[in-house]
């Protein structure tokens, strides 16, 4: 690293960096903290701790439904994204075709464009085609927004992939499809799953485009939070926020445990399958 006033320079950099991390994390802690306040308005400092708002949260059916909707849409969208994104990644890594650069940029665009654009675009499409807003359209829209993430993640792992095991599989009698399902897929699964988890998180948190597509019965958690911020600013919002934070962090950990277990089981399963 740097040599001249080593101790001091490192300290400055370290302190600065820690400060930035502090800046990034504090707001989250504040939200979680405030979910325990007995007051009706989240104010500082907190006089005591209570689980009152958590009880109210579980009793609020509309809220719970919104949460369930978010999870359901998220899971569906991440599955679809997983398939579409992976296929696209394979195409991009293994072949060259006309318009590849352009298509690549277009695929990545939902990641950068303001969500409102994607929102109004799909909304207009639904209107012109006389398709009603529905759970299905919500999934379609979320898939559009999240498959670029799977695309990027899977491509990264695919670039370093050694194709000789695919060739070996073919010399042993497996056709292209069998080779893909028995050999290629199991070996790129880690990145596909990572991408899908990414997609799930993005979907659960999606607000801007989603607001164009929801109906009262298909409201998702972020939509509910936003309306609560407008009309019903009680610490219940904090509870919802805390629940989402916990879910967002828990899901990848749980998934990792489950997947790791599943793969080990399959690996050591039977001989002569």
């Amino acid at each position, binding site marked *: 690293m740097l040599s001249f006033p080593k101790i001091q320079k490192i300290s400055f950099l370290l302190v600065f960096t820690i400060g930035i991390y502090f800046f990034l994390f504090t707001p989250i802690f504040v939200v979680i903290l405030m979910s325990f306040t007995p007051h009706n308005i989240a104010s500082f400092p907190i006089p005591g701790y209570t689980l009152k708002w958590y009880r109210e949260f579980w009793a609020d059916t509309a809220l719970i439904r919104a949460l369930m909707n978010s999870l359901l849409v998220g899971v569906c969208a991440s599955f679809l994204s997983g398939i579409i994104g992976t296929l696209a990644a394979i195409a991009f890594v293994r072949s060259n075709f006309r318009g590849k650069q352009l298509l690549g940029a277009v695929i990545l665009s939902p990641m950068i464009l303001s969500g409102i654009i994607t929102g109004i675009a799909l909304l207009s499409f639904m209107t012109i085609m006389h398709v009603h807003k529905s759970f299905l359209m919500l999934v379609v829209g979320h898939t559009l927004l999240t498959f670029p993430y799977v695309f990027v993640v899977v491509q990264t792992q695919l670039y370093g992939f050694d194709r000789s095991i695919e060739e070996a599989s073919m*010399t042993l009698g497996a056709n292209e499809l069998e080779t893909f399902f028995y050999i290629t897929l199991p070996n790129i699964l880690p990145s596909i799953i990572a991408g899908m988890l990414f997609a799930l998180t993005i979907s659960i948190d999606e607000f801007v485009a989603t607001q164009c597509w929801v109906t009262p019965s298909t409201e998702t958690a972020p939509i509910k939070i936003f309306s609560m911020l407008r009309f019903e600013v009680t610490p219940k919002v904090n509870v919802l926020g805390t629940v989402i934070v916990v879910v967002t962090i828990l899901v990848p950990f749980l998934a990792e445990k489950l997947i790791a277990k599943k793969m080990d089981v399959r690996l*050591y399963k039977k001989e*002569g399958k």
Partner: protein
Amino acid sequence: MIDVELQGITKRFGDYIAVNNISLGIEKGEFLSFLGPSGCGKTTTLRMIAGLEEPSEGSIFIKGKRVNNVPPFMRNIGMVFQNYALFPHKSVFENVAYGLRMRQVGKKEIRRRVGEILDLVQLSNLENRMPRQLSGGQQQRVALARALVINPDVLLLDEPLSNLDAKLREEMRVETKKIQQEVGITTIYVTHDQVEALSMSDRIVIMKEGEIIQIGSPKEIYEAPKESFVAEFIGQSNCLVGKVIAVKGEEVEIRTDTGLMISARAGEQLEEGKHVKLYVRVESIEISERHSLNSKNVFEGLIESASFQGWETVYYIKLYEGTRLVAKKNRRESRRNLFERDSRVLVFIRPEDLILMPG
């Protein structure tokens, strides 16, 4: 009976010609090696036989059937890759059983056959291990077992030993050849290591820049190279350049460019005045401190350096008129005597040990 036949096979990658019009037939049960420097087209040829590459021109026949348009999984071949290409997510057993699964073989049968082949390669106790838990040598044997268990028509090996260390390589050479002979399978082997090719093959195909230079048994290749390239590639030789001075029946008198007079044996007729190259293998040079009985091809020389290498000693000798020779002597030949630097010696080369090549 010819098991594999190549007719006029050419492979182009854009403007680059990797394989140029090669034709040959491989007999049933034969162990044939493709030998040559990197980039000579040997691996490409192997991959075309496997079906992993398509020939630009020509036809490939396996067991009499034209297979150009047949994909690899329908060709009944067994292939061992340079990096073994074991499936990382499957155990040793599952790896070996894979080909049988693809052929819809029943579970019991799979169990029996995989068991047998693992016995053959001596890996029975490692059935349930994963590839990453195996050593290089073990992985190579799994790859071999996997390719053999399906009873392929042809066994194809792409430099299977090059990732192993020298000692292991020697052991595996013997093992592999032993297994091949036991099973009796037609084998095509690609390597850049001449010791492998010479020790294992029934026939060797020397390739250079996409073309076949010479085909022959190891002995033929070694003793009767047809071209300079082969003479230089195989074994270690000294090369002298000169002109034919006189021809007496089978014997030819040659004067090198540096003035040395040598007698050699020529298989075909050579005319006086013709330019030739003379190759003499490093082990064919006799060194002595006193005169021997023969009077032909005896030259005075000086030992410039002697390098003791255990079984062999390598000498750099400078002859009286300037020619430098490299000679190798092993302990048995030299009766454990070593010549020292700066000692004067007599160098003797038997006429029949000189390989003549038009130059």
